[in-house]
């Protein structure tokens, strides 16, 4: 029997150059922007309808309006009520979901290619002609109010909500898409109707279609379903996009606690606002994040999980949006080690800015993680369609995915240190704990963060 050579790891050859499928653009006479891509792996087709707005477009006294409006889409259209729509989706084996993001709402439907027309028609009916019945509105609003009550017991959700508020204050990005109880209670069906008319209109909206069909066939499917969607008449008051509104630079507090008596773990968020998705430093920031906390072998996870055993996992990330995005370190740690874990996390953020810059091996690893095997991100029609929707969301060129790998590969260690120093700002870092305040209060005084702001859940 032969034995494998285990004296060293096998060499790995280069990746083949990454090719993204051709994106063909069409504009329907009503102004709807259509992107079609052929994807012939499996006889499946995905539609992503992306409209501007999202949670960032919620009026200040109507937080949750965008999400509730989106929720109304599959509650009824034409002769179908919510049950009827759900049955119609099941009959074509469709997967359907709605994503309410800070800058946009994306409605995604995937079905078998033989049901492409049925799927497109159903999507068009829901998105462009929802019934918007009062009884459905009342029921959904109540479900969301109840959901908010339940979220009070979910430490991650409590942390998300409090942290957005700490970072953004009153800025339109400063709330969860679900909104809050009082804004939901204040909402009327008329608010929802108006918001729908404002957001769901052919001009400015993009429909991405990816499937095992030709461009001509994909286009024909979309024309049949969306060609008669009229642009609303009458001028719309333009509203200022959330991305164009200045966000607060200096946070209200450096340390905050949401008490959760008897909690076994402390849910932690550490971060501050950073920069926009369209920053020219985007690629360098991705590499920085991969070194710091964006992957399993990053500094933060290795320190907090593999070295200290404080947590099941810790990571960092930029929660990108068109406007200024947060940089966030998040983890959940055993209550007893809360202050130690925070100190370790702060130290990692501080040191990557200069005292311990990214090393050659870390750079190689971070860049490889981002670039090698890149094609696996585009196996399914949903992956491809959602990726193209991102191009539209962030005004990126159609060549973006093919340029991604060389762009990241060109980032060097000096650039990473430069962007770390520029975009990570330790004095502005906000640390939020959702945990047992009594149990940790004394240990928090060892941190150089001052007295904590105590926030009710």
């Amino acid at each position: 029997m032969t034995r494998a050579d285990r004296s060293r790891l096998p060499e790995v050859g280069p990746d083949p150059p990454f090719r993204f499928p051709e994106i063909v653009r069409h504009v329907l006479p009503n102004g709807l922007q259509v992107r079609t891509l052929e994807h012939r792996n499996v006889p499946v087709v995905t539609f992503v309808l992306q409209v501007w707005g999202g949670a960032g477009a919620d009026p200040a006294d109507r937080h949750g309006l965008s999400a509730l409006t989106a929720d109304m889409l599959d509650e009824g259209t034409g002769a179908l009520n919510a049950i009827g729509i759900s049955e119609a989706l099941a009959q074509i084996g469709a997967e359907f979901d709605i994503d309410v993001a800070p800058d946009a709402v994306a409605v995604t439907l995937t079905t078998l290619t033989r049901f492409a027309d049925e799927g497109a028609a159903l999507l068009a009916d829901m998105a462009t002609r929802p019934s918007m019945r009062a009884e459905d509105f009342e029921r959904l609003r109540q479900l969301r109010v109840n959901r908010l009550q339940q979220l009070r017991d979910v430490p991650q959700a409590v942390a998300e909500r409090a942290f957005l508020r700490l970072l953004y204050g009153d800025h339109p990005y400063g709330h969860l898409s679900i909104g809050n109880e009082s804004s939901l209670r204040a909402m009327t069906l008329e608010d929802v109707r108006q918001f729908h008319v404002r957001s769901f209109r052919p001009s400015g909206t993009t429909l991405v279609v990816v499937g095992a069909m030709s461009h001509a066939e994909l286009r024909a499917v979309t024309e049949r379903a969306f060609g008669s969607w009229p642009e609303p008449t009458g001028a719309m008051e333009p509203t200022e996009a959330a991305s164009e509104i200045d966000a607060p630079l200096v946070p209200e507090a450096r340390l905050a606690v949401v008490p959760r008596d008897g909690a076994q773990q402390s849910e932690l968020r550490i971060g501050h606002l950073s920069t926009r998705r369209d920053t020219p430093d985007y690629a360098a920031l991705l590499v920085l994040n991969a070194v710091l906390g964006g992957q399993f072998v990053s500094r933060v996870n290795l320190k907090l999980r593999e070295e200290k055993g404080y947590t099941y996992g810790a990571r960092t990330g930029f929660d990108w949006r068109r406007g200024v995005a947060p940089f966030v370190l998040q983890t959940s740690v055993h209550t007893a080690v809360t202050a130690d874990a925070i100190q370790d996390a702060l130290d990692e953020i501080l040191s990557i800015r200069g005292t311990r810059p990214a090393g050659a091996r870390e750079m190689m690893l971070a860049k490889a993680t981002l670039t090698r095997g890149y094609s696996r991100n585009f196996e399914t029609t949903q992956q491809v369609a959602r990726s193209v929707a991102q191009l539209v969301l962030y005004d990126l060129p159609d060549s973006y995915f093919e340029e991604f790998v060389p762009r990241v590969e060109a980032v060097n260690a000096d650039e990473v240190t430069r962007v770390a120093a520029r975009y990570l700002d330790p004095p502005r870092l906000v640390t939020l704990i959702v945990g047992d305040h009594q149990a940790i209060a004394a240990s928090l005084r060892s941190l150089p963060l001052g007295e904590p702001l105590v926030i009710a859940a």
Partner: protein
Amino acid sequence: MDLPFTKHTLDNGLQVLVHEDHHVPVVGVNVWYHVGSKNERQSRTGFAHLFEHLMFEGSEHHNTGYFPPLQQAGAILNGSTNADRTNYWEVVPTSALDLALWMESDRMGYLLPALTPARFENQRDVVLNERRQNYENRPYGLAVMAVVAALYPPNHPYNWLTIGAADDIRAMQFEDVQAFFRTYYHPANASLALAGDIDTETAIRLAENYFSEIPAGPPPEPVRADASIGREIRLVLEDRVEMPRLYIGWHSPAMFAEGDAEMDLLSDLLANGKASRLYRTLVYERRIALDISASQGSRELGSFFLLVATAAPGNPLVDIAVAVDQELQRVMDEGPTKAEMERGEAQAEAQFLYRLQTVGGFGGKSDQLNAYNVFCGDPGYFNHDLARYKQATPESLRRAAKQWLHFDQRVVLSVVPRGQTAGALAGSEPVLVS
């Protein structure tokens, strides 16, 4: 629709499955060990899962952590443990297949020399954190633990969840870890699937090259255990939650046994999605529940069917329980409608097709080949599996419901906000889990 493959068994018993798909230049590498928490014993729980963690810490010839070389090659990787099996996977660029097989074979053949007490103790802490985060500190996080503890006797290995009991995890000994590896982690108890941009001949040659030197261990003893309950067990659990929630659990047919697909179809028909009967009645029309779902948790020794519903504020759990039983009775009496059957079949067919889109990762084609191979002894079971759903009839669903969803042989757990045990179903016994 098909999932074609080639099967080749090495002399040491390792079963190698290869599926070619050249759409994307990556390969899904997937290893299953036929071991899970059902191979654990009472008071020694949590072992299989903790062990999975240790498989990422290094092996004799690469003793510095499993992630860096693979990530540097552009791989994504993970692993998971359930009651019946443990799986490990990498999705690698085709040019890194050699590396992935080197790494997988090294930890299959040479883990113990690299396994130190310090690594073991560190990962034990990580797992205790995982347990706190995902169970103890999560609303309703202990509910399913309470249900299975009541469904199965204490010496039945489905009596506990895969994460294990915190005390058992703390009490684990390093020597036990070594013995566990020798018993279960060897080629004769494993299945290797490679799916993606690879030609079959090369794939088999590489598998031979890296794995054939590893000696086979003795095949583990099959686990046998029976469970039944002769009455309705009512329990109440207090938790840090806002809304009371009802869990109803039944024993149900084992994975791939007669009635298993029917129970899966029944779960959707009854409680999953807005078109399901109970969603319509409880959430949409009467609004006495906030959500409802059901699942057929298919497992080797026997499955359990679980129905979960959260009460809307001001509505007692008993109203939900009564409505559920009415609907169950109706399914047992009348069976599903033709339209319900058509929808169930259309959804099953689409789901099987969607599953063919990815080569690697959880649920990808390599994972499916291993599942069919390990659980059915036939990696080509894909179409038989689908046929189970297509051949189900209103009568077979009605029969399955009648045979398994007895009102007087089940566990009914009320999870209530602390201090509100009065909100539980009448006659519920307090239950303690931690």
